[in-house]
């Protein structure tokens, strides 16, 4: 199979430049949201909460909050990244270039993973201002964050190709992603839920993502880390296959 690193790099750099162009917004917005959550849940409410699994409540919610912002930002960023060129017509260039699905994804997803890491660093830095915490497995956390960012960049990419209006573009993150993340144990351990809600909560795939990240932070998890990792990798794989099929058939890309 052919792969042109220069093409992939060009797409990567352009995606990164796009993020830096709106750097103010991309940094300020997560800093502000995270701060608000920490003021309300971390400090005010958290002070009256029991530690969860030995972790003080304020620290306990960090991975969940990180996941909440990461999923939302990555998905919408990637979906805009491909939707806007379709909308304005600039996608003609990508379609007429000697570039296949591999370069396109390497560029888009690589950039999304990088942005995910930067975003995570910003959120963790902000969190540090409010609560004290140690990350048990920093390397695992970094890899996991990149993996999740890459998966949801692919997911956002599919969304951006599927959507034929701005409304549809915004509806999935708002109607599905945010509620599932909230219900996925951002602010609590799903194991603390009364039966049958603990089992029902585990039907939510995002609970596994939150749990995985929480494991990398504090060594405690609702489900084994291996399960979270495999689930993430599986999601990544499925999204990649869907995009490969989209490129092969030209669905919504080529008339």
């Amino acid at each position: 199979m052919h792969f042109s690193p220069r093409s992939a790099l060009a797409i990567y750099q352009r995606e990164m430049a796009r993020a830096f162009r709106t750097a103010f917004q991309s940094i300020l917005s997560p800093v502000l949201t995270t701060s608000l959550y920490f003021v309300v849940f971390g400090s005010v409410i958290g002070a009256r909460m029991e530690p969860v699994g030995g972790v003080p409540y304020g620290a306990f919610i960090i991975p969940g909050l990180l996941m909440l912002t990461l999923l939302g930002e990555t998905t919408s960023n990637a979906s805009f990244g491909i939707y806007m060129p379709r909308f304005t017509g600039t996608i003609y260039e990508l379609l007429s270039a000697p570039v296949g699905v591999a370069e396109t994804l390497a560029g888009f997803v690589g950039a999304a993973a990088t942005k995910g890491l930067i975003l995570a660093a910003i959120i963790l830095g902000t969190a540090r201002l409010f609560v004290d915490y140690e990350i048990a497995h920093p390397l695992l956390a970094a890899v996991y964050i990149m993996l999740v960012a890459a998966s949801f960049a692919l997911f956002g990419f599919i969304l951006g190709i599927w959507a034929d209006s701005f409304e549809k573009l915004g509806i999935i993150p708002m109607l599905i992603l945010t509620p599932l993340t909230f219900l996925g144990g951002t602010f609590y351990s799903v194991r603390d839920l009364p039966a049958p809600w603990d089992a029902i909560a585990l039907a939510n795939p995002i609970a596994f993502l939150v749990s995985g990240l929480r494991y990398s932070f504090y060594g405690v998890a609702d489900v084994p880390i291996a399960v979270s990792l495999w689930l993430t990798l599986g999601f990544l794989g499925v999204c990649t296959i869907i995009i490969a099929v989209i490129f092969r058939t030209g669905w919504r890309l080529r008339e």
Partner: protein
Amino acid sequence: MSEPILSIRGLTKTYANGPRALDNVDLDIRAGEIFALLGPNGAGKTTLIGAVCGLVRPTGGTITAFGHDLARDWRAARARIGLVPQELATDMFETVWRAVSYSQGLFGKPRNPARIEEILRSLSLWDKKDAQIRALSGGMKRRVLIAKALAHEPELLFLDEPTAGVDVELRKDMWEQIAALKQRGVTIILTTHYIEEAEEMADRVGIIQRGRIRMVDEKRAMMERLGTTEAVIELAAPLAAVPEALAGFGAVLSEGGTRLTYRGGNGQGRGRAEVAQLAQALTRAGIGFTSLDIHDSSLEDIFVGLLGQEQEAA
């Protein structure tokens, strides 16, 4: 003739719940030529370009560029093809420089700032290199699109209506740019519905209508074959019939015998020569005339005539 640089066979495109935009199109493009695809709006010009450049999936037929079958070896072929689209689709917030350098990288070329500078200078965009594209005028945006299309040094360049909506002065300017590209050895396919443009620029012209190529020929040959010279001679005194001395010219009388009209020639000077002979014959025969008006048919007349026939046939 050498191998065509682009060879299209039986190309057909039917849009989903849409019309048949291309109907069994055969077309060969020669290396180094400027080929004008001339046709009214909706004829299928953009669709044809889209099919070659990978924006449109053909319903049937084959496209071969540089000897590569586009269905299989699209990478190799696309690396050598450039496209300037009809719509002014640009990344508004990007600067000119970044936009062009992105194109260079996207097409797999190593970074080459000297080449970009050369392109921007040749298109008079150099002093705008750090400007955001949204701040540029329509004509300038079109140039940015050309610069982007040239960034990977294509050997075959498509220009889809390069002068649509461009004022006369800019249009002349664009023609010069295109001529300069040809000088550099780039093969150019441009679409237009300005006949004047095809006449001015093209080595060969293809006339397309309702998805079918009606005619492809050297511009000159086309005008030779179909071009005519028309001469209208207003006579000093009415004639009852065309005199014997003028019989060979095939001229006809009208307006109560006061107007003599000649139609003939090959669009390449023979008509004018015959009109001169006709005028001399009139003088020799002692027939006076007050005015003589000559008009060579242009590509426009050919075009309108051709489409008119089609309309009647339909």
